[in-house]
């Protein structure tokens, strides 16, 4: 691929992320990958639902007592907003504004970090103050694996987007890095959607008992 082609906002293609074969492959590839990741999460969700509130005889921790909605609500807002800011970044990519892409992707990372920080705080609270450690019960194992798998996806997304920002800080947009930004943003939306399900299944349904 030739990186020397200089674009102007006028000559920048409408779908820069799919303008080359490599870009098109990345675009299709990330969607196919997400299909398989959906099945991965579906398996973990199913396990969580079947092991919810299950533990050794006489276990005194239940989802209804453990979970609160306040922290989960703040986390949800942070992640939903970060999804919106990544849309702004893609909007600027369409208009060939590389600064806009970098700034909004940067804000996305900050919001993601905020989410991650709250999740770590939540795990710390449960483990240390509630005595609800990973090995406590089947319920605790399935809770940490479900929410933790999502958290791991967030970490991967943050490293990925941060890497893209640093690598492309000095050079503008081109047909080589546009598909990379686009794929990362699709992945980020996916993480967001999964969290909506976690919020519903773990926290809302948990509080209802």
């Amino acid at each position, binding site marked *: *691929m030739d990186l020397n082609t200089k674009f102007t906002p006028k000559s920048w293609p409408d779908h820069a992320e799919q303008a080359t074969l490599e870009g098109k492959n990345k675009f299709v*590839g990330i969607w196919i990958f997400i299909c398989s990741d959906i099945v991965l999460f579906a*398996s973990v969700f199913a396990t969580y639902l079947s092991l919810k509130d299950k533990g050794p005889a006489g276990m005194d921790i239940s989802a209804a007592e453990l979970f609160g909605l306040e922290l989960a609500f703040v986390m949800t807002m942070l992640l939903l907003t970060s999804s919106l800011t990544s849309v702004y970044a893609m909007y600027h990519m369409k208009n060939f504004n590389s600064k806009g892409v970098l700034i909004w992707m940067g804000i996305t990372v900050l919001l993601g970090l905020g989410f991650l920080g709250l999740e770590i705080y939540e795990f710390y609270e449960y483990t240390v103050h509630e005595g609800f450690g990973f090995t406590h019960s089947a319920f605790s194992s399935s809770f940490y694996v479900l929410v933790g798998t999502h958290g791991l996806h967030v970490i991967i997304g943050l490293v990925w987007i941060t890497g893209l920002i640093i690598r492309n800080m000095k050079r503008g947009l081109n047909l080589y890095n546009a598909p990379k930004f686009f794929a990362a943003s699709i992945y980020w939306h996916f993480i967001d959607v999964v969290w909506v399900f976690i919020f519903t299944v773990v926290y809302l349904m948990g509080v209802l008992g």
Partner: protein
Amino acid sequence: MSSVAISKKTGFGATLWDYLTTVDHKKLGNMYFFAGLLFFAIAGFEALLIRIQLMVPNNDFVSAGLFNELLTMHGTTMLFLAATPLLFGFMNAIVPLQIGARDVAFPFLNSLGFWLFFLGALFLHLSFFMGGAPDAGWTSYASLSLYSPGHGIDFYVLGLQISGAGTLISGINFIVTIITMRAPGMTFMRMPLFTWTTLISSALILFAFPPLTVGLFFMLVDRMFGANFFDHTMGGNTIIWEHLFWIFGHPEVYILVLPAFGLFSEIIPVFARKRLFGYSSMVFATILIGFLGFMVWAHHMFTTGLGPTANAIFAVATMAIAVPTGMKVFNWILTIWGGSIKVTVPMIYALGFIPSFVAGGVTGVMQATAPLDYQLHDSYFIVAHFHYVIVGGIVTAIFGATHFYWPIMFNRVLNEKLGYIVFWVFFIGFHLTFFLQHFLGLMGMPRRVFTYQADQGWDLYNFISSIGAIMMGIGVILLVVNMLLSIKGKPVNQRDYWGDGRSLEWALVTPVPFYNFKQTPLIRGYDPYWIEKHEGNKEGMTYAEPLGDIHMPHGSILPLIMSIGMFIAAFGALYHPDGVSWSVPVIILGIGITVACMILRSFKDDLGYHVHKEEIIALEEELYGKGGNK
């Protein structure tokens, strides 16, 4: 820009480096093929030991514990590490040629997929030397494996996790390749059947491997990090493993058998010299089998106690799969019907496949009947059934396709006479081994027992069965001899070795250059090469573009290093439950190596290189003599 690939470096080191760093789908196809063959031989050897042990009653050739390890490793290796890579070998070597692509969509990931598979397989096999192999069966049911002492099950979990990741990556790669990289004019309904079955089988990989990953991860944290997914005293549920395993495990059968169907759908029309009968119904049946394959997993769990409603639903769904499969069988028969049949080694494998596979399918429908399955469950009847499907369906396809595609893959021919001998020795051995096992099962012999009492009427059948297994072993050895002999043979150096090739891959003169078609071909219908041949085209294909520069990807060593990183991390996890101090640092080191490679890959642009027109002409003159590829 320089063209690295054309500059000739020779010598062992350069060749080795070339194979370690290659992203060429043809080389990776060969690597998959030989890696698969290696594990096929190992697992076959394990099967022979099993059959020697069962040859006579009250035998003590191997101990009960070793027998469990052998049967576990035989099943696990055959399915994950032999059949899958052998078929991946053909997919890699043939599919890009069949659709007229330069390479797969993600050449780097193709290489990563291979190395993850290979190192995962290696890790699993290290268990033999490091304190005992897994011993809970290839299904490794949690109620048994959770309490298995030693590290055997840990090797199983970690090895399959790594090689499974490689398989998933390759699956995604094939799907994207087939969606985006077909040559102009090749619509979906003009794709050869092998490409179709590769697409559907990759889609099955896509949806089937994540549940396995999750199940293995639960087992991993349960055994190594104190989680409680399967421990009922802590609220866990061991049935979760059975569900997750079979949601993967049943589609896995179709992941393997669909490409085998595809291979036969390529072989039969060539040697019946007739267009494949019912092409669109073949495509439809492939998709339907893929879909239904996910609806039937609980037929492996009829005796688990899910209740009559669940059992009835899964029984009906299972029987429904016989319909599209039957469509395929009739289409093959009707392709042969009225054709001008030329019997060759690939064709005789195809002719042997149809009745053998039907036998396996019919016993499958018998087991789908839930009440009958209560009788057959865990007996040798089951063993006979799935070996009829796997050996009769998949292994015959692999052997047939080995003869069929050898000229394209290696520019050599396998000896035909020896090929027939191998077929008859193997085929008769196969039926001797497994046909009688149906009756052993009906007479009540349970599977997975390491020995049995004399005078229950089982002695003779077991003895004959073992003789058959030895014949199969001789057949495989002769096949390998045939492969080795072919090295000395004359190079093919022509297109369309069989003379009746129909699809695009036969339009290429062998040896196939690293960029495949020098110009992208134009596809004018189903069986494109056949169309061109019958219009008197002497140049193979009509091309969609003038001869120009070709863009190719660079090789990379990173996939190997990334896989080694996972390999190292697996050792850390393995020894974690022993309480050694270095386990967590080793896990971090291993994953760190992998992540560092990913970041390096991301920061170093990989733009590929161009092969210039003049270099292509020069290379083709060197390969094919004056005048180049005409």
